[in-house]
């Protein structure tokens, strides 16, 4: 269930030419529909090809996410303690972790329907919440919201919330715990270790 939603979450943005004038809700809708269409047609993705999905996410989705902001949000107050170089490393590792985790979720997309909630914003707003809902047979609909920020004339997603659970701030306590134990470098190391073990598991699964 959640996996599929995460799939849609990952589907947040597609690399169509972005027009600054394009409203954030239109952006979310366009990208969601385009990515879902690709998934619908792609047998390899439906059969769980991780590489194929990561590729799709890399090309179509990532350009519309602000990973630096996401990482800062996930790290919280320790972010200021990190040097620019550490911040860079954190953002890179966190991106790898989120992409791998949620790309896999994309492969599980089936039988769902996305409904876009009414959206209103004032023209001068630069930080908005776009609300959608995923409907599935026999289950409660699941709320799926995107936080977007306008910067340099471009809307970018900096948080995704599934059933009220932020995929970003849900890391805050875990990250703080790592920083307490081993400093910022300790946190970077543990995310990197996690990424490597996920990669190894994938390789193992594909050999079978």
């Amino acid at each position, binding site marked *: *269930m*959640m*996996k*599929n939603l*995460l799939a849609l979450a990952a589907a947040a943005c597609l690399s169509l030419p972005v027009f600054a004038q394009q409203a954030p809700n239109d952006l979310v809708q366009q990208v969601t529909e385009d990515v879902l269409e690709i998934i619908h047609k792609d047998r390899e993705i439906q059969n769980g090809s991780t590489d194929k999905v990561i590729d799709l996410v890399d090309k179509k989705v990532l350009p519309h996410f602000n990973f630096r902001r996401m990482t*800062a*949000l996930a*790290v*919280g*107050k320790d*972010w*200021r303690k990190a040097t620019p170089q550490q911040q860079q490393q954190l953002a890179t590792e966190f991106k790898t*972790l*989120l992409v*791998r*985790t*949620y790309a*896999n*979720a994309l492969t*599980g997309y089936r*039988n769902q329907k996305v409904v876009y909630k009414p959206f209103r914003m004032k023209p001068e707003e630069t930080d908005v919440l776009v609300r959608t809902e995923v*409907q599935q*047979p*026999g*289950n*409660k*609909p699941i*709320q799926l919201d995107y936080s977007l920020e306008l910067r340099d004339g471009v809307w970018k997603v900096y948080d995704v*919330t599934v*059933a*009220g*659970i*932020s*995929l970003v*701030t*849900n*890391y*805050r*306590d*875990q*990250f703080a*715990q*790592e920083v307490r134990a081993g400093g910022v470098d300790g946190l970077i190391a*543990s*995310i990197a270790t*996690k990424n490597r073990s*996920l990669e190894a598991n994938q390789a193992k699964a594909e050999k079978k």
Partner: protein
Amino acid sequence: MMRKAPSIVPACRALLAAGLLVAGGAAFGEGNPRDPYEGFNRSMFAVNEVVDKYAAKPVAQVYDRATPLPVKAAVGNFFGNTGMLWVGVNSALQGKFADSGIDFGRLLINSTIGIFGLFDVASELGLERHDEDFGQTLAVWGVGDGGFVFWPVIGPRTLRDTAGWGVDYAADPVRYFDPTGVRDAVSIVRFVDIRASLLPSDRVVEEAALDKYAYIRDAYLQRRLNQIHDGRPPRLDDDY
């Protein structure tokens, strides 16, 4: 998460009592202010992981593979409908009378036209499905959450939501199904249905979490806050 299987209830009560004792006597030093009973919780989490791995999850997987989608949907709709009366009561207790009217309308429509709740006709008609329980009602009335507790079998709950769950349990129509054989069978199917609906998220949690316990705890707390505020929780400070 996993709820209301009558056969295990006496055991739950005993554990609950034991847990409250532990929780009451425990001041686990520093640590996370939102998780005052972390030591106890982590051991219960470990117990639950084992129970899930060897019992709940395998059964849910068999159910998930063997059951065609329309049947699964009907089962989900049926249990959604049996809970609708209580949802309506809680909407009313929270002062949301319009919502409450919709909840009772849903119950009426789905129980009749929807054939005992097997089809969710009300949603097709555009009547929104709300998500309420007594723990949320307590929160709306101003009861604090009392700290996070990880219970065996029933899983994560705050102390307030544990109390709410007790009331939800007493108000559960399935409990009054007769004969008891039917009641128990229905309760087990519901438990399996709920567990099966969580299967796809298993892998995500497994892969996403640095610390699975903390990931589940924080996700639970965020989700409850969202439910209490009906999908519009107050924004977290950016804090960086």
